[in-house]
């Protein structure tokens, strides 16, 4: 009995790999989108334009205060009512991008705020424009603070991408959900699903930890 299920599961393995590819595609696209959007938002938030800052603050609070599942439902079910029809895949990428951007905005803002204010003043005194100050003075230093939590955020993004399976994106979680209807061995099926996520996430977690350690080691001798 048990062995026959295992055999069936092995036969279904290519579907799991397809699902994994979908997970990687959805999270990869939103990772790029979320990083770009998040960096832009974080820099704007740090630039002290009051109105933009409060709008971004409200946006970040909304994204952090509501479950991602509710955000996915809002984008997938409510946008069509307003005339914007998105396929499940596009809705998934859009919601993940907006979600990740909010968290990355906070990470970038925090990183920029951690750069000593003397740096900004010195750059100003050297006659650099605002863009130059950001590009050559602030961001390169802020990156050290930003990088470890940023990689940690990518791990969260990949894990949260499992939620988009509920609107019909055939990622690993959804493949597992389909498979468990035919192979009633929940532990085995979702054990495999977990293993596939683990294979993607664990190296990234290790990378994030290593980056953090490296940053800490550089701190006392650095600035």
């Amino acid at each position, binding site marked *: 009995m048990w062995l026959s299920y295992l055999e069936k599961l092995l036969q279904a393995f290519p579907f799991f790999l397809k699902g994994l590819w979908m997970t990687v595609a959805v999270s990869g696209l939103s990772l790029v989108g979320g990083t770009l959007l998040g960096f832009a938002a974080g820099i704007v938030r740090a630039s002290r334009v009051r109105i933009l800052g409060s709008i971004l603050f409200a946006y970040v*609070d*909304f994204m*952090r*205060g*509501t*479950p*991602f*599942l*509710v*955000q996915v*439902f*809002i984008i997938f*079910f*409510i946008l069509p*009512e*307003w005339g914007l029809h998105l396929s499940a895949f596009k809705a998934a990428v859009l919601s993940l991008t907006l979600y990740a951007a909010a968290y990355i905005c906070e990470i970038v803002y925090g990183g920029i705020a951690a750069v000593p204010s003397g740096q900004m003043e010195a750059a100003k005194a050297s006659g650099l424009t605002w863009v130059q100050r950001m590009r050559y003075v602030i961001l390169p230093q802020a990156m050290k603070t930003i990088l470890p939590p940023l990689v940690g955020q990518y*791990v969260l993004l*990949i*894990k*949260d*991408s*499992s*939620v988009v*399976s*509920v609107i019909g994106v055939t990622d*690993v*979680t959804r493949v*597992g*959900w389909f498979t*468990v209807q035919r192979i*009633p*061995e*929940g*532990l085995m*099926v*979702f*054990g495999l*699903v*977990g293993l596939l*996520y*683990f294979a993607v*996430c*664990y190296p990234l*977690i290790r990378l994030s930890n290593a980056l953090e350690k490296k940053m800490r080691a550089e701190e006392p001798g650095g600035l």
Partner: protein
Amino acid sequence: MLEAFNFRVLADYLPLFLKGLWATVWISAVSLVGALAAGIVACGGRISRFPFLSRCAGAYIEAIRSTPLLAQIYFLYFGLPTLGFRLPEYQTGILALSLNSGAYMAEIIRAGVLSVSRGQIEAGMAFGLSYLQRMRYIVLPQALGMTIPPLLGQAIVLVKDSALLSLISVFELTRAGQIITSERFMPAEGFFTTAVLYLTVYYALKAFSTWWQKRLIYIQPA
């Protein structure tokens, strides 16, 4: 778009939403207690001197942290019956949430315990306090104060994560939004109301966390 927002239907469904909010709150509260218990046990294992215990706790923490909560919920929901455990959905959900959050709690508590300086533990040893006494009277009271803000952060995550239980047909806040969507086909009314109610819980917890942090600075001048 706002004129299309049907407040009358909302009024009809308000009791349902409040019931959902209450379910979300108590499910999160019970899971929080479970997560604290799991977290303390896992943290104790992680920092113990026995390599076997430390490895087991480490494996648990890493396994939870590198897999999605939804996969863990399905793992228990579809997996427990094959082992012969038939639990009601909400119990499976609470178990999954507790185990998931417990792994993150363990790391938070560990950071708190390690933040208590070595000299204090040695002083406790010099007084002839046993391991349990040192933990009870020296380490934990200080570690707890330090860990309250990140623990509250984790509580916020827990409340939001409990939304996933709606997918294994546990009745809670998100489920209420799904019900109004399927019965009246009004997703905007359903999910925006859901979002606003989640936001109230979020702001309440956030305010409490800010208040506590101010208090903490007051107690322990840097």
